Every structure is written in structure tokens, then in C-alpha cells.
């Protein structure tokens, strides 16, 4: 319009520029509207991290495979002892072949199905312990950080509990309940929440007095809204990180407990038990596959959870959102 040569002033006037605008309520609201959604942004940032996304797919595949593996055709039973038909002896330390994909162990059990059964056990322990840690840790940590009069006493309790050797608790637990899956989970739950509670407490202490919280309090925001809209999005990323890391940590801890002889009974395959069995045979080079296969599966699982947890925590941090 600007380039057009105008001979007479009245020629350049277009009528519609001088019409009265109607007041439209919906249009007026639009400026203040944003279609920002916390979880969608988190997801968008997360899938941009290609390594983490690939590992997420790997985890989904691994987890669903461990769940459906026993129902697939031609799978061996993880605790059945296989007999060699020609000699009528146990099929001991059979090297990997078509029949036994990962070979057999020292008493003739199929290592392939034992590994997946062990993964199932270990993942189950990890998920249960991780969820419990988050549940107990957040509640106690929030009380610890929020209620100022409780600060001293919970700190004192924490100091005492943190210094009692876990081994004593574990042995007492196995004494009361006999060694089993439940025992190990309960024992890990009893002591596991401490770190999480302390962590949540520190976070809450840091952000509860920030200016933006003060400001929204002055503006009359109810406490519930402050917690859900101001504090929780801040905590979500780190709490998710802790849960994601609690799973590999619990798996590693199970390996440790088995190593010092306080883990699961040998009859329940778990990654810790498998690695311990493999360790007993590692001096014979031809039998090292019994250590290497479980170690590879274990590392794959823990590494994927670790990387994915970190990437998700980055993505869940509102400061990284667009």
C-alpha cells in the first residue's frame, strides 16, 4: 500500500480502516493464554535427547521381554536341573550352544532363562524399593523441611538411624523373617528412605523462603496452590531422578548383599546370585561366560536406567523448557 502512488489524498483512504471494532470477550482473553503444559514440555525436551530416547526404548523392550519371556515357546525353566541323556548325569557347565543359548551353570540349570528370571527379581526389588523410597522420603522430608518445630528432633533421629550399621538391621530382619524376597525388600525399605528424606528436606529448605514463594503468599495464594504449583514442579525433576537412580542402586545393593552372604537364598535366581555364582568359577577361563553374560545384562539395565533418569531429570526441570 505504501508504494502506491496517490494522486489525491482521498484516493488512499480505505473505508474499512475506519470502522468501529466490536468488543469481543474471547479475543480479549487470548493474549493471556498459553498452551504450556508441564508434562508435554517435559516429553518434548526428553525426546530431543536421542541417546536417552534410544535407551528408553531399550528399557521398554528389556522390561517387556523379561516379563513375557517365560511365556515364549521353547523356554527352559530357570530352576530346573537338566540331565545329560547320554551319561545320565547333570548337564554341568555346558558351553553355550543352540540348545542352551547361554550355556548351563555348575549344577546344570539353563543360564539364559536364569538371567531373565534374575532380571525379573532384581527389577522387581528395584522398582518396589524405589517407589517406597520416594513415598516415605517425600512425606518425611517434606515434614522435616516444612514444619520448623520438627527440624531439630528429626535431624537427631536421622543422625542416629544413619549411623546404625545396615548389616545389623539386615541380620535381625533375616532372623525374624527368614531370608526371602520380602525380607530383602523390607530391609532395604527400612533404611532406604533416609537419603531421600534428607534430600527432599534440603530442597524444601532451600526453596520454601524464595522470593517468588513469598510474593505469592503476599498475593494471597493458598498454601495448597503454593505447594502444587510453586514447589512441586521444582521437586518433580529431582525426585524422578532419585527414583530412576534408586532402581540401579537397589540392583547394585542386592549384588552387594549377596556378595557378603546376606542376600537372597540361592534357590531364587537374581542378578546378584548369578554374578556370585559366576565369580566362583571365574578362575577357569572356559567357564567365564557364566560371569560375563549376567554382568552384561546387569550393566545394560543399570546404565540405561541411570542415563534415562538423568535425561528425564533434565527434561523435567522447568528451566530447560521452551
Amino acid at each position, binding site marked *: 500500500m505504501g508504494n502506491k502512488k496517490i494522486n489525491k489524498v482521498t484516493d488512499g483512504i480505505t473505508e474499512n480502516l475506519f470502522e468501529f471494532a466490536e468488543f469481543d470477550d474471547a479475543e480479549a482473553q487470548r493474549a493471556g493464554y498459553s498452551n504450556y503444559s508441564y508434562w508435554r514440555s517435559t516429553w518434548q525436551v526428553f525426546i530431543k535427547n536421542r541417546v536417552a530416547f534410544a535407551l528408553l526404548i531399550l528399557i521398554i523392550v528389556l522390561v517387556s521381554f523379561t516379563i513375557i519371556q517365560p511365556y515364549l515357546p521353547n523356554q527352559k525353566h530357570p530352576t530346573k536341573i537338566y540331565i545329560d541323556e547320554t551319561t545320565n548325569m547333570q548337564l554341568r557347565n555346558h558351553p553355550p550352544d543352540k540348545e542352551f543359548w547361554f550355556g548351563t551353570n555348575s549344577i546344570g540349570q539353563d543360564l539364559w532363562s536364569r538371567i531373565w528370571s534374575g532380571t525379573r527379581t532384581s527389577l522387581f526389588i528395584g522398582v518396589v524399593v524405589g517407589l517406597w523410597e520416594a513415598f516415605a522420603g517425600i512425606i518425611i522430608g517434606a515434614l522435616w523441611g516444612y514444619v520448623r518445630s520438627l527440624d531439630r528432633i528429626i535431624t*537427631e533421629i536421622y*543422625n*542416629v538411624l*544413619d*549411623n*546404625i*550399621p545396615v*548389616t*545389623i*538391621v539386615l*541380620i*535381625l530382619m533375616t*532372623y525374624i523373617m527368614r531370608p526371602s524376597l520380602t525380607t530383602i525388600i523390607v530391609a532395604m525399605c527400612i533404611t532406604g528412605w533416609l537419603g531421600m528424606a534428607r534430600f527432599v528436606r534440603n530442597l524444601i*529448605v532451600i526453596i520454601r*523462603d524464595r522470593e517468588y514463594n513469598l510474593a505469592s503468599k503476599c498475593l494471597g495464594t493458598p498454601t495448597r496452590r503454593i505447594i502444587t504449583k510453586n514447589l512441586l514442579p521444582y521437586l518433580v525433576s529431582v525426585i524422578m531422578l532419585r527414583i530412576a537412580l534408586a532402581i*540401579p542402586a537397589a*540392583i*547394585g545393593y542386592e*549384588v*552387594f548383599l549377596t*556378595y*557378603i*552372604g*546376606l542376600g537372597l537364598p540361592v534357590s531364587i535366581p537374581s542378578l546378584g546370585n548369578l*554374578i556370585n555364582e559366576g*565369580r566362583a568359577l*571365574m578362575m577357569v577361563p572356559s567357564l*567365564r561366560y557364566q*560371569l560375563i553374560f549376567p*554382568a552384561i545384562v*546387569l*550393566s545394560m539395565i*543399570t*546404565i540405561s*536406567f*541411570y*542415563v534415562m533418569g*538423568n535425561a528425564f531429570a533434565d527434561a523435567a526441570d522447568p528451566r530447560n523448557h521452551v
Partner: protein
Amino acid sequence: MLKYSLKRLGQSLITLFIIVTVVFLLMRLMPEEGYFGQAYEKLDEAQREAILAGMGLRDPIHIQLLNFYKSILSGDLGVSNIYRPKVPIAEILKSKIPYSLYFGLTAVAISLVFGVSLGILMARSKSKFWDKLGTCYIVFINAVPAAVYYLFIQLYLTGIFNVPMLFKADDPRTWILPAISMSLGGTASYAMWMRRYMVDELNKDYVKLARAKGLRNKAIMVKHVFRNAFVPMAQYLPSTILYTIAGSIYIESLYSIPGMGGLLVDVIQRQDNTVVQALVLIYSSIGIVGLFLGDILMALFDPRINLNKKGGAR
């Protein structure tokens, strides 16, 4: 500072007192078979009672507690009953601590040097080759349980370097691999934190000012960024160093080093109460002292931290 330290000391003593009492009572809850080990089946009821009474375990619980406090206050850790019968606990510790201390301190030194330099290197080449390589290392070490990579190091590196698999006190070659394996975890965590703090600090205004006034990059790194980034790490340094006394269960049992590593687990399983109590006492005091020294060290590194006043926010 003195007033603060005294107050802190008083609090710690109370905490220590509670911990030791709780552990004492927990040990009394343990099944009594543990006191006899293999011999349990062979003894009859009267013999068992006699042995337990001889250990003072049939006295009323408050008298046992009182005797226990008395012996601690007189500085006597007591005598081992089951682990090595009739040997003073101080003696057992004296023979074991030097090994753990040697490996632990070497590992801390190695991990500090390599971890901090790796962290700085990673922060300086952010999202370039070294950063990515370092991240891979950190992820691997943090995610995979230590037992697994310790095992593989022992399995393959001893073969490659042609050193004996097990530790021998008079063969210096066998001292190296355990110390290096022990340092791997520390290296990873130092590198991770160093990188994170360095990256945080590098984005701050004072770095831009220092650059604007024409300071060279190296001077900014050493004089400004490093010092600030090291402060949060300084807090954990004393505890880390003190805790080396406790040894590493994995490393010491893998290489069969006669150190402190498995001692606590071992004596708890055998229910050698006196040794358990002594060890818990030592470890918790280490923890408490370490935390205190950490606070002081942090205040020394960063003059802005004042231990006497409460922070403005709280």
C-alpha cells in the same frame, strides 16, 4: 568459633551416646545361636547357659549397659570373644588398620588428582570430545555395580600386566591394582561434581567481569572459578579421608587383603558383641568428626561462610 565447636561437640556426644546404646540393644536382640558358631549343636542347654553367663550376657540388661559405658569411659575397647577369643580389640585393629589406610589414602589421593583434573578438563571442553568421553566414564562407573567392574579388572588386568591375582604384602606389584580399582569410583564422583560446579561458576557475572578486565583464561580458572567450585567438595573431603579406615569390603576380599573391609560384617554375623560395639563407636565418631571438620574446612576455603550466625533465610 570456639563456642560453636564446643556446642557442636556436646551435641555429637549425645548423638554418639544414643547410637551406641541403640546398637548395644539391637545386638542383644540377635539370636543366641550366633554366640556358639559351629559348636552350637554339640553343647547342651546347661553348657550354653554357662558360656553365656561367662560372657556376662545373663546379667540384667541395665547392668550390662552400665558395665559397657564404664569400660568405654575408661578408654578400654574390650576383648574379642568370638572373632579372635581373648585378644584385645585394640590389637586386632592395630594389625588391620594400616592396610586399609594405605589403600584408602592412595585411592583418595589418586581420585582427587585425576577426578579434579578430569572435571576441569570436561568443564573447559564442554560438550566436546573430552566432555563426552568423561561422561561415558562417569555414567559407567556410577551405574554399574562396583562388584562387576572390580571383578573384571582383577580377572583381566592381572593377566595383561602379568601380576599375581592375590595380594602379597612383600610383593609391591600386587599393591597397585587394588589401589587403582578403589580410586575409580572416587574419580568419577569428583569429576562429576567438579564439572558441574565449574560449569555453574563459569556462567556467573564475576567471571564475565574478570574476562572483561582482561584477565587471562588460566588465571580466571585457577584463581576464581576453581576456588569457588572446590568449596562444596571440601565439605566431604575430611569424611572421605577418615572413612578410609573402614576399608573396602569388595577390594579387600577380592584380593584377600587383611584389612578392615569385611570386619564389621564378619563380627556382626558371628555376634562378637564387643567388637561390633567398638567398631560402631569408632565409625560413628569418624562420621561425626568428619562432618565437623568438613564444615570448618569449608569455612576456611570460603571466608563468606560464617559458622556462628544462622543464615538470613532461615
